[in-house]
């Protein structure tokens, strides 16, 4: 086998050294009844070329070469070439978690830069080195808020990504954290703060909102913050479209931000791997889940970096840890770091402006469902035309339309969620307009 670096004679020598007459000897101590007595029922190994061929065929079974207006938590953005150039360097790709700081300064410094940029983007004071994704980041943020406030009840906006809420529910249910949802305004698609106020109580540890919310609407975070804080709860703000932070004021009043960085040069990849983050205020740092890199010095006085505050983590604290997370999404975070570096201060703004312009052009071709302000995504409906019918027509033109909302919001069964980014071409948007007309 080409990945195995021992010749037969080397294996023989090593077996001899071990005093084993054959490889079987090495397993002789296993209980007989636990042994597999037949070969695995898997075909023999294939060559590199056949592997590529196999996956090419699979790729061809997918929608290759379609324009798409799907967003809903996963966005199509240009991926600067440098991102893969960096991520494919063996030194980053094939290294482990940087526990041995002296030979992992490259990864450590990049994470430190990542943490810094996430803070700059979100306006928070500290950010961790990544979570699995946005949805689990939210669940962890909720548990973090419960620890910080000593109160487990969660009040979650229905305009938070439905799948994020499902994940949250799974965690909350088993943690014994009561979870209640509050609504959105039928006209604006923004938070129904009256509903929130109504449902707020003294047991509530966290109010959870998303902005831009699942409908793309830039939401009323400040109001939510006031209500949450008045009730002694923390405000958790979720984002799924990181590019929006290039132009939107970071959520003022948030105590914890849980977000998804897929938009930062991470290909949609059928839903993962992506990278979640948690950013918060310094005072909550001991409650943070996930790894943190800190700056320090080496014995010669040179600046150095290392993993730190590990007493929050499972490998030290075990059942008392702030989270069970161990392996995270480091390489994806690195890719996002390269993305942020390439775009930089001016680029991220310009990128966000292009998204804004494209989405507003698309919106001008169709009928937005809500009147709330939006960034690069919005709900739309065509009187008398079902979303599925519109999409079917678009598919014939090799365009994947929007996400029909009925799946998650029965009351919005007449609407679909459309996203436009810098990659959206005017001609395709015009085609969507025609399909809606």
């Amino acid at each position, binding site marked *: 086998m080409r990945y*195995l670096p021992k010749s037969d004679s080397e294996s023989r020598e090593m*077996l001899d050294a071990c005093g084993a007459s054959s490889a079987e000897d090495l*397993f002789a101590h296993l*209980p007989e*009844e*636990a*042994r597999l007595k037949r070969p*695995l*029922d*898997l075909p023999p*190994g294939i060559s590199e070329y*056949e592997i590529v061929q196999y996956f090419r065929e699979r*790729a061809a*079974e*997918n*929608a*290759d070469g379609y324009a798409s207006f*799907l967003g809903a938590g996963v966005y199509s953005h240009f991926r*600067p070439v440098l991102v893969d150039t*960096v991520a494919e360097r*063996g*030194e980053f790709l*094939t290294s482990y978690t*940087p526990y*041995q700081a*002296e030979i*992992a*300064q*490259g*990864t450590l410094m990049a994470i430190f830069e990542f943490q*810094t*940029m996430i803070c700059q983007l979100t306006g928070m004071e*500290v950010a961790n080195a990544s979570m699995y*994704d*946005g949805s689990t980041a939210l669940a962890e943020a909720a548990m973090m808020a419960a620890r910080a406030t000593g109160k487990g009840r969660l009040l979650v906006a229905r305009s938070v990504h439905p*799948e994020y809420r499902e994940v949250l529910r799974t*965690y909350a249910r088993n943690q014994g954290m009561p979870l209640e949802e509050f609504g959105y305004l039928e006209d604006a698609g923004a938070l129904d703060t009256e509903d929130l106020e109504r449902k707020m109580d003294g047991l509530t540890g966290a109010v959870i909102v998303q902005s831009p919310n699942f409908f793309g609407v830039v939401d009323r975070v400040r109001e939510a913050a006031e209500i949450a804080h008045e009730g002694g709860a923390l405000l958790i703000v979720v984002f799924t479209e990181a590019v929006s932070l290039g132009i*939107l004021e970071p959520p003022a009043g948030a105590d914890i931000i849980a977000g998804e960085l897929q938009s930062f040069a991470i290909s949609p*990849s059928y839903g*993962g*791997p992506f990278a979640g983050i948690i950013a918060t205020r310094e005072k909550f740092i001991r409650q943070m889940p996930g790894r943190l890199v*800190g700056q*320090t010095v*080496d014995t010669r006085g040179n600046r150095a970096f290392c993993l*730190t505050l*590990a007493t929050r983590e499972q*490998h030290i*604290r*075990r059942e008392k840890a702030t989270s069970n997370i161990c*392996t*995270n999404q*480091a*390489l994806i975070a690195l890719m996002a770091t390269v993305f942020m570096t390439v775009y*930089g201060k001016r*680029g*991220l703004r310009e990128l966000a402006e292009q998204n804004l*312009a494209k989405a*507003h052009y698309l919106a001008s071709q169709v009928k937005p469902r809500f009147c709330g*302000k939006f960034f690069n995504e919005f709900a739309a409906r065509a009187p008398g035309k079902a979303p599925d019918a519109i999409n079917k027509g678009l598919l014939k033109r090799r365009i994947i339309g929007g996400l029909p909302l009925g799946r998650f919001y029965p009351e919005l069964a007449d609407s679909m969620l459309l996203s436009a980014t810098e990659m959206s071409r*005017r001609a395709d948007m015009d085609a969507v307009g025609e399909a809606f007309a």
Partner: protein
Amino acid sequence: MITKVRPHLSQNEPLLFERSSPGKIAFQLPELDVPAVKAEEALGEENVRGSIEGFPEVSEVEAIRHFTRLSTWNYAIDYGMYPLGSCTMKYNPRVNEVVARLEGLAWAHPYQPEALAQGSMEVAARLEAALAEITGMDAVTLQPAAGAHGELTGILMIRALLTRRGNPRKKILIPDSAHGTNPASAVIAGYGVEHVPSSPTGVLDLGALERVVDRDVAALMVTNPNTLGVFEHDIMRAAEILHSRGALLYMDGANMNALMGIARPGDFGVDALHLNLHKTFSTPHGGGGPGAGPVAVKKELEPFLPIPRLKRLGKRLTWDYKRKHSIGRVRAFYGNFGVLVRALAYILAHGGPGLRKVSVDAVLNANYIRKQLEAYFELPYTAPSMHEVVFSDERQAKQGVRTGDLAKRLIDYGFHPYTVSFPLIVHGALMIEPTETEGKRELDHFIEAMISIAREVEEDPKTVLSAPHGTRTSRVDEVMAARKPVLRWR
């Protein structure tokens, strides 16, 4: 004598923020083909931010140099052996990176119509089937993002099953040799944790188990081979005890690299286990992730798998969301799909016979190291080794040198250290897992290095205590980092 490395120059590099200068750019966007929009009008003045303070401003050449220079400060599998016990740092085949980037796969949106996602779904289905065969289990979910996430998912399913049976029970038993994620995951699943001491030979103590398994015990979480690299000889008896008392057996499958084609958890009594695709199935660690932690279960647990489940309808695959007993979702979408692609590529490359050879070679390598080093390092548990071997620093500690010091000195010899101070049941552990992708030459270098260090401990402990000496960064002050945390540049 250090023969594997020599000193060479390595480029310094400031933080990105220190490199920035106003107006430098590394990007260009195509010109807008639609009218520009005034942000203040579209978003409302109060929602529009000013410029992002401190955000980098560099050119493309500076960006590539920055990250290239940083990269050279890392050690990596591509440089040499990485014997981190429990981590299974094996070679990461590059073809896997190629296929994961094929456009039709990499650009598939999780919500694109199923008819236009059959390729991705087929990849998932084939991987599920292969993992089921390798583990001897009945059903697999690919949703969990890493091992710990898989543990949580598995324990939640056990909880759901027991709840359905009438009582979720209260606690999970965990051997004292277990990985830290096991108790942490159990707690997130809503359970208490009871640690069970290992037997004097480092394995499950059946007598103790008999004593502690009562009606409050939901499951035992066991790692097999355990973290000493020892196969749990009594695993089937343990399963019987648990099952007879209405509890389940969860296996941490992090060490499956020892067992492929050799023994299957499904055949030795396990009810649920997770796999770490970033260990056994060679998806790259990437400096800490991403991974994937699929969970395989027996039929009884199948109704509780997370939604959605992949289902075959004739020739078509579909996602099934209507599963009333499911624990729900543990992650948005379907898992770390790009990682799954790589793992399947790995399985296809080896095939059945190849995977068995992987395990055989992994075990051979560990035993070879054990044999060559046991004269120099204390072996606290002498049961036969599988894929890894755990020594202790007992002899070296007499000279004041601890496992962490030995590890740092190993860096000077051109290796990444082994895993330090784990498992906890070994005081001063040196946990060494070579994996099957090390050849004899590299192993011999490692063995020589370890023996040489053992000698240094006797003759010149100071050199070991102050290691590493050859690296661009000498020993790092972790205490200061934790005492006065500086977690971002300002």
